[in-house]
Structures are given as C-alpha cells and as structure tokens.
C-alpha cells in the first residue's frame, strides 16, 4: 500500500510540505517497527531456547545488614519503584496517544467524505449565473430601445415648442415696436388735448365738493 504510485500522486496533490514530511516520517517509523517485529517475533525467532524476557515489577530489594529499612522506604517515596510508573510515562502513554490519534484521524476523514456529497450545488449556480447574465443583457437592450425612441419623440416636441415660443415673442415685440413708432408728436398733442377735455367734462358733471 505504501508504494502505490496513485497514492503518491494524490499525496503530492493534496498535502502541503509539512504534512508530506510528517507522513513520510510516519511511514519510516512504521516500516522500522514492522522490521523489528520480524526480527524479534518473526518466523526466525526461536521461542523455545530464547523465550521472551519478563521484566520484574520492582527492583530487586537491596538491604544491607546494618542500615535501617525505613531509609529505603523514604527513598522509595522520592525515586519511586521502577516498573509500572515508568512504563506508563515512557511506553504505554505514548502508545495510547498514538492510537487515539489514529482513531481521531479516521473519524475526521470520514466526516470529510460525508461533507463532500453536499458540494454539487456549485454547477447549478454557475448555470444560473449564466442565465441571469443573459437575462440582464436582454433587459438592457429593452431599456435601450425604449430610451432611443423616447429621445427622438421628446426632441421633436422640444423643437416644436421652442419654435412656437420664439414666434410668439417675436410677434409681440414687433407689434409693440411698430405701435410705439407710429405715435407721431402731432398725435401725442391731439391725444393729450382730448384727454384734458374729457377730464374737464367729467369734473363738471361729477361736482365733487372739496
């Protein structure tokens, strides 16, 4: 399994430098452990003449004839008893942690595989985006058509209105100018005289007492 070329390709595709180094070192460790197992427990091992050794649980108890035993008890409190305690720290502990690590990893990988099933929506979203872009372009074309036609009609309207307004203003100015020009000085004097005469008659007829 470790020499599979497909596995090598996938490891290089999906793992970073650090994790690659870690997997390689792990592989080395495991191959070494396998080789050691072959050496010590394999078919070439002669268990009859060389049985597996059994370590004592405690040190061989040493007691000199004249030294009181309780000093040894004190020492045992400080130094501990070789055997089970060291085993736990140096040997069983790390092994247990390694087993937990493998279990945790397997659980995580299985979770990843489950999550991967839910990632197929991406293709549908791409298709929808394309459709929406086309629709937006079509709507843009509609607004453009509307805008252009309206622009031309509004232009004609504005043109007509300005022409009318200009004509009106010009005519009004022309009429007033011509009227003002036609007022000769003789006409002025006559109009003033007639105004005074009418005022006199009005004054006589009204008889307003002061």
């Amino acid at each position: 399994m470790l020499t599979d070329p497909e596995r090598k390709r996938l490891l290089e595709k999906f793992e970073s430098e650090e994790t690659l180094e870690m997997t390689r070192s792990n592989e080395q460790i495991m191959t070494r452990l396998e080789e050691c197992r072959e050496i010590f427990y394999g078919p070439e091992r002669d268990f009859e003449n060389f049985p597996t050794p059994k370590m004592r649980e405690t040190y061989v108890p040493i007691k000199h004839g004249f030294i009181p035993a309780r000093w040894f008890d004190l020492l045992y409190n400080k130094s501990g008893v070789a055997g089970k305690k060291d085993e736990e720290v140096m040997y069983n502990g790390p092994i247990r942690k390694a087993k937990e690590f493998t279990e945790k990893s397997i659980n995580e990988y299985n979770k990843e595989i489950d999550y991967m099933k839910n990632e197929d929506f991406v293709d549908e979203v791409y298709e929808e985006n394309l459709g929406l872009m086309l629709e937006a372009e079509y709507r843009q074309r509609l607004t453009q058509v509307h805008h252009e036609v309206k622009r031309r009609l509004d232009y004609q309207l504005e043109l007509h209105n300005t022409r009318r307004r200009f004509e009106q203003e010009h005519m009004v100015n022309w009429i007033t100018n011509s009227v003002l020009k036609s007022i000769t000085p003789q006409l002025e004097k006559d109009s003033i005289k007639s105004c005074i005469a009418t005022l006199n008659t009005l004054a006589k007829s009204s008889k307003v007492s002061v």
Partner: protein
Amino acid sequence: MWWISCTMAGKRISKTAIDWIALSEKIKPSTQDSFKSFRTKHESFLKAVSGRPGELPQINFDLYKSQLPNKQFVDEMQKLYSTVAVTYPKAPKAILDQLKQKKVDRAQDQADYKKYLNYKIEEMKYFRSVIDKLPPPEEMTTEMLAHYFPDSVKSISYVKKNQPIFPFTPDKPNE
C-alpha cells in the same frame, strides 16, 4: 441541461431555484466564508436583473400626437415600436465549453480527493495495526528498544546507518 434550452428556446429566468439556507447548513464549517462570498456574487447578478424592466416599457404616443404637428412621424414611430423584435442574447460557445470543462474538472478533483481520503484512512488503519502488534512493556529489553526506537537510546552500537551522530553531515550520512 437547461442552458441548452435557454439558447435554443429563449427560456427566461429572474429568480433562484436554489435553496441557499438549506445549503448553508450542510457545508463544512471551514468553507462558510467562501460560501458567503459565492452567494453575494450570485445575488449581484439577481440585482442586475431585477433592477431593469422585464418587458418593453410603454410610450404614450397619443400625448405626442396631440402636441406635435407632424403626426406622420409619430405614427411611424408607433408602428416601429410595436413591431420591434429585440433578440434574446445567446451565450457564446467558448463560455459554454468552459462551463462543461469546469464541471468535468470539479468532478475529477472530487474523485481524487475521495481517493486520497480513503488512502489516508487505510494508512491510519495500518498504523493502528502496527502499533497494536508492539510487545508489552514486560517483554521490551533495552536491546529491543534500541531497534524499535533508536531515538530513546543513547548507545551508538545499535544506531542505524541514517541516524545522525556527531559530526552531523547530512550530505554524507555516517559510514
């Protein structure tokens, strides 16, 4: 696929057919942020579509006819406006091919990743089996320990060839 029918029959779209809320609950927690940005990009397209009219907007030609002297012009405009045929845009072939290619690539990547994960699971199971076969602590002698875990033993006689010792020269491993 519906995009084929879109280019052929001009089928129109203005809303999503995707349940975003349900999807956000199903995805990995580490990809939440990229999912959000993906969704906002999609919503930008929706906004572009909804901000514009769906059909050709109406023009009040009677108003113009009543005010302008040149009614022939307005009549012509009206006729053209009512019969205008705005073409629905067609997706260029390059983009459709790109989309197909993306789908294929994504499927391939997914298959590769799945294979990779399966390899990793096998690896972990193999490690577990090797660790289980280790001898119990009562049977482990110092000699065996030097073979199994050379780092934990300082004696040189059982050190393997590629273990570094003084002087440390990685170019020429110890001979």
